[in-house]
């Protein structure tokens, strides 16, 4: 677990009152070097069952650092299920059985990594915005608090940084201590992204983050995703082919639990190799 804890040291460093910029720089460096050597996720032969029904069939794929990977496919094809597997949120689903291997930064997430530590590193944003019924500040501070940071000053710093990173500091700085439930849907979703960022992850999983939002909010979230990929690895599930096309570097097409095609987004949309992919992206079904 040595490596994991090294990369987790961001906050440890902050507590030692080092300048936070230094820590960020260190992390940046670490990432740079990692990128050359390995994919963030390396999945091989993943099968997933809900009781008797198989929801994922023999999935193998690599997800690269500092890229946006989009999952597309018709409803029920297993996109969300696969996404949840990546940070072991399926642990909480009764009757869910997984075989196969998922490496996160080279470590087997089912054997070598503690699920809590994994989730610190791999954050998640859901389809419906899920702000807690707390103040904006407390929502963002939730992750750091969970990780044991209680120093007020430090929290304030983290909250501001995260809200800025999620492009909503200006809107929210005046209502930090009001309930987050009073925000609009788009604001709530960006708040949830800020909350995820505050936990200092290296990967952000997003499950149809814009499907409940109006076009203007959607635009903002898409811009945000493009910005964030500088620092984070992003996996996004979307039902909108347009969206996948607009923002992702790689696209994976799922159908009935199988990974049908996985390729650079541009290639996939201009020249799909599988006829089913073509049918789907040209709108002949789904």
């Amino acid at each position, binding site marked *: 677990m040595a490596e994991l804890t090294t990369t987790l040291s961001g906050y440890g460093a902050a507590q030692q009152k080092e300048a936070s910029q230094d820590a960020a720089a260190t992390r940046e460096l670490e990432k740079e070097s990692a990128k050359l050597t390995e994919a963030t996720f390396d999945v091989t032969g993943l099968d997933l069952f809900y009781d008797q029904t198989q929801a994922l069939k023999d999935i193998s794929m690599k997800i690269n650092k500092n890229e946006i990977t989009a999952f597309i496919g018709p409803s029920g094809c297993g996109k969300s299920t696969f996404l949840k597997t990546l*940070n072991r*949120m399926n642990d*909480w689903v*009764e009757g869910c059985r997984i075989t196969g291997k998922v490496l996160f930064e080279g470590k087997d997430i089912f054997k070598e990594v503690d699920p*809590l*530590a*994994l*989730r*610190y590193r791999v*954050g*998640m944003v*859901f389809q*419906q915005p*899920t702000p*807690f*019924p*707390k103040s904006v500040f407390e929502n963002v501070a*939730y*992750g750091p*608090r*969970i*990780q044991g940071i209680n120093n007020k000053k430090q929290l304030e710093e983290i909250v501001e940084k995260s809200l800025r990173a999620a492009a909503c500091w200006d809107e929210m700085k005046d209502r930090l201590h*009001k*309930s987050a*439930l*009073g*925000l609009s849907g788009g604001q709530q979703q960006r708040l*949830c992204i800020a*909350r*995820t960022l505050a*936990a200092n992850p290296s990967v952000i999983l997003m499950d149809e983050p814009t499907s409940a939002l109006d076009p203007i909010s959607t635009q903002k979230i898409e811009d945000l995703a493009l910005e964030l990929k500088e620092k984070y690895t992003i996996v996004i599930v979307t039902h909108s082919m347009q969206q996948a096309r607009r923002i992702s570097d790689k696209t994976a097409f799922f159908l009935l639990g199988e990974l049908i095609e996985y390729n650079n987004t541009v290639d996939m949309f201009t020249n799909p190799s599988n006829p089913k992919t073509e049918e789907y992206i040209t709108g002949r079904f789904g």
Partner: protein
Amino acid sequence: MNAIEAAVSRAHRSEKAARTFITVCGIGMALVPFLIGAFLFIKGTDTFFLFGHGVGEFLFSGEWNPSDTAEGGGQVGAAKFMAGSLVTCLLALIITLPLSISSAIFMTEIASPRTRRLIQPAIELFTGIPSVVYGFVGMTVLIPFLRSIFPMPFGFSVLAAGIVLAIMIFPTITTMAADAMAAVPKAWREASYGLGATRWETIAHVVLPAAKGGIFTGIILGLARALGEALAVAMVIGQMKVFPTSLFLPASTLTTAISADMGGAMEGGEYSAALWTMALILFLLSFLFIFLIHQLNAASSLKGGK
């Protein structure tokens, strides 16, 4: 007139009839508490208007010696009983709260849905047990037990009443709390787990705060139930007419005082008027509790911005 027109006009007619009936029932039922309130008010204000006692005397004086005659002239300080009621209720709450919350958390967060379906009805069953049975078990089992482990002269005590009441209100608070927790959206739990929180952290930081409105309602309803309970408390509290100064000593409550003397007091006398005033106080306290729940609920949902 064709079939469709007939169906439409029939639908409108039944709508009108049902709406009238239902509105009458709704309003009618809302009148019942007001009727009871009015009835208690008429009976309960004799102490002040007929027998000339001050409200201040009634509420704050400890001198309780009403005369059982139509002439009056006694003293009607009911502070002892009010203090007794409040102390026993609070004690019951303090005892039952950890158990209730634990059980509710166990049912909603830890146990499987099947276990929950098994336990919850079992807990609800306890609302159907007559208070005499609670009182009797308290008297024959609890009191000797307390006397053997604590240095108390009688066994009959505020503590015994608190424990018996705690058991009686346990089902109410537990069920309400469990329902409130079960109603917390799964999305919040998932979001919390997704940030790397453990179950305990999720419960403490997300589930409990989100469910606190419902838990609070349960507490208030439990308190109201405890406040109104007479027979079981009467059997274990000792009904000594003193202020509740120690957990290990007896005291009296509003309800025990009412049920002890209401039957024997002279109709229309000062004693019975004073008892009715206590019943009025009980009614007002219940109403105050309910009012509080609503204020708090309103406040917390305003905070949610919805």
